[in-house]
């Protein structure tokens, strides 16, 4: 399992390389014909910050080569903001006095109708950590209902056992998104003081369980701002490499959530500025040329536009982070503030203007759901 692999990996040489990298080292990596995982420390060094243009040019060439002139869009659907955890940085923390709501199946179908009309076929179901999801097969039945309407269904909820993921896959689940938040066990304990989320290794091994259960798309990441960004980036990279090798049938995507203002008013101890943020994403693109890099509407429009032309291949658009918000205006509190509030159409139009075709659908949902063979014929 990854938790053991991580414990046994010596990051000393990487941290040393990053600290000692000079201009010549950076140039040498940027001109290599094949960039490897071992080159990540140099790409993430402070020295490399003065080579961002070169980094961007190469990342752009690699991204276009591997992904073509396309970008995939997805949208999150918040089904509940109830949560039994007390994460210091999150608007859904159980410590926050805020209206809570879990959508019923009819409300979810209404939201999905609206979402489909916007063009989306990739849906991410999001929820706070609430036991309701597994009661009366709630989550399973949502997935079964939605499977025929979406090409790819992912979840971003609490970690589950392998048997639960297996059941959800049979219902039509395609992907699991789960961020470790921070790979530093000490920081992790500080910011996740109570609730099931305080279990660091269980969370860390989630993708092993999900992939073993047959989940096709796994999406990992660290919440930038909680811990030292280079520390976190090294571990996200190792996690990605581990998953690609150990679970070769699954696709691994990497997200880059960056701390934002939320209900919790938590101040990030390691804020990541735009240049550093861009550097991290570009470094990942060079070291992982085939993996989707994901950027949500947490980030501002201008930054998203530039990153989508050089590294990012999977983006959300028109997002709302509060349950019921696509169809109603008076809704319970959202998880965090969004920066890119452009409409889906505006975003699509800007992407097109930048020479990128929007790919709404890139999978057939019925490939995942074993029990709905009858739905083969559209």
């Amino acid at each position, binding site marked *: 399992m990854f938790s053991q692999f991580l414990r046994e990996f010596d990051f000393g040489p990487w941290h040393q390389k990053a600290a000692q990298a000079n201009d010549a080292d950076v140039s040498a990596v940027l001109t290599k014909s094949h960039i490897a995982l071992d080159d990540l420390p140099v790409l993430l060094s402070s020295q490399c910050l003065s080579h961002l243009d070169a980094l961007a040019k190469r990342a752009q060439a690699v991204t276009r*080569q591997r992904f*073509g002139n396309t970008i995939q869009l997805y949208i999150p659907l918040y089904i509940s903001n109830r949560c039994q955890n007390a994460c210091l940085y999150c608007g859904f923390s159980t410590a926050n006095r805020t209206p809570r709501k879990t959508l019923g199946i009819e409300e979810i179908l209404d939201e999905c109708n609206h979402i489909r009309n916007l063009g989306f076929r990739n849906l991410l179901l999001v929820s706070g950590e609430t036991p309701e999801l597994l009661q009366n097969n709630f989550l399973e039945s949502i997935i079964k209902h939605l499977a025929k309407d979406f090409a790819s269904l992912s979840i971003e909820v609490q970690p589950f056992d392998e048997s639960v993921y297996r059941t959800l896959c049979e219902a039509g689940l395609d992907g699991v998104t789960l961020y470790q938040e921070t790979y530093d066990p000490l920081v992790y304990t500080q910011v996740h003081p109570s609730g099931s989320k305080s279990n660091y290794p269980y969370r860390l091994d989630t993708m092993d369980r999900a992939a073993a259960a047959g989940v096709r798309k796994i999406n990992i990441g660290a919440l930038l701002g909680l811990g030292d960004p280079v520390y976190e980036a090294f571990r996200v990279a190792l996690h990605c490499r581990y998953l*690609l090798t150990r679970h070769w*049938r699954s696709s691994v995507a990497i997200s880059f959530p960056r701390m934002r203002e939320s209900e919790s008013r938590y101040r990030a101890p390691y804020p990541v500025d735009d240049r550093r943020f861009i550097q991290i994403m570009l470094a990942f693109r060079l070291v992982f040329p085939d993996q989707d890099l994901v950027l949500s509407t947490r980030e501002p429009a201008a930054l998203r536009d530039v990153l989508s032309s050089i590294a990012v291949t999977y983006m959300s658009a028109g997002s709302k982070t509060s349950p019921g918000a696509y169809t109603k205006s008076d809704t319970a509190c959202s998880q965090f503030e969004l920066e890119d509030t452009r409409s889906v159409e505006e975003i699509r139009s800007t992407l097109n203007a930048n020479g990128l075709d929007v790919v709404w659908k890139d999978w057939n949902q*019925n490939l995942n759901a074993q029990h709905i*063979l009858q739905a083969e014929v*559209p």
Partner: protein
Amino acid sequence: MDRLVIAGKEFDSRLFVGTGKFSSGEVMAKAVEASATGMVTVALRRVDFGATDNILSFLDFTKYHFLPNTSGARNAAEAVRIARMCRAARGDTWVKLEVTPEPRYLLPDGGETLRATEALVKEGFTVLPYIQADPVLAKQLQDAGASTVMPLGSPIGSNQGIRTRDSIEIIIEQATVPVVVDAGLGAPSHAAEAMELGADAVLVNTAIAVAGDPIAMAQAFKIAVEAGRMAFLAKRAAPQRTAQASSPLENFLRNA
């Protein structure tokens, strides 16, 4: 150029093209037209049959034969399911079989490809399987009723050209159906090389779609495929290691 026949259907062009990775449907359509191809392949996982502006709406299927592909299928069962789905939706019975369980290199699973071919041929499909350049597998697929074999030059999208030359030569030598070199052809010269080896056709996608000028690149590939085929038919002399007089015995025999 001499005509190519696959499963009884005649093609003037020996260049087939894929439709992914283009910056827009319009550019894709123009590039396809510039290639002068007779057959276009589309990943069914990209097709939203319910949407009016899906990828198919950009193509004129009176001009091009439509070859749906099962890209994304991870095993024979999934590939068969995708093929049946397309036949139910559009009536197409041709299918390009891609069974690729590993999502990074998208290399084909030979065993599952063979299994899917057997099943689909039995169901009346015209099957064009994408394979590693494996001569034994190629013969097995032909025995199973595949209408072509499509060995890769190098991994999909890698643009590395023909890295499987020796095996492709064997496949061509032993083939009883057309051989289409598919995947990894990154430049028109790679396509010409495939044709000079004796391939019956090539399939190109990424190299055209991500070129700075996809329309010009499509045209370049068209010309390269024609040149390669002409060279093959003109029976290019085998490369010699040493300089050779045109006929070492000529003078001797004349004077004998």
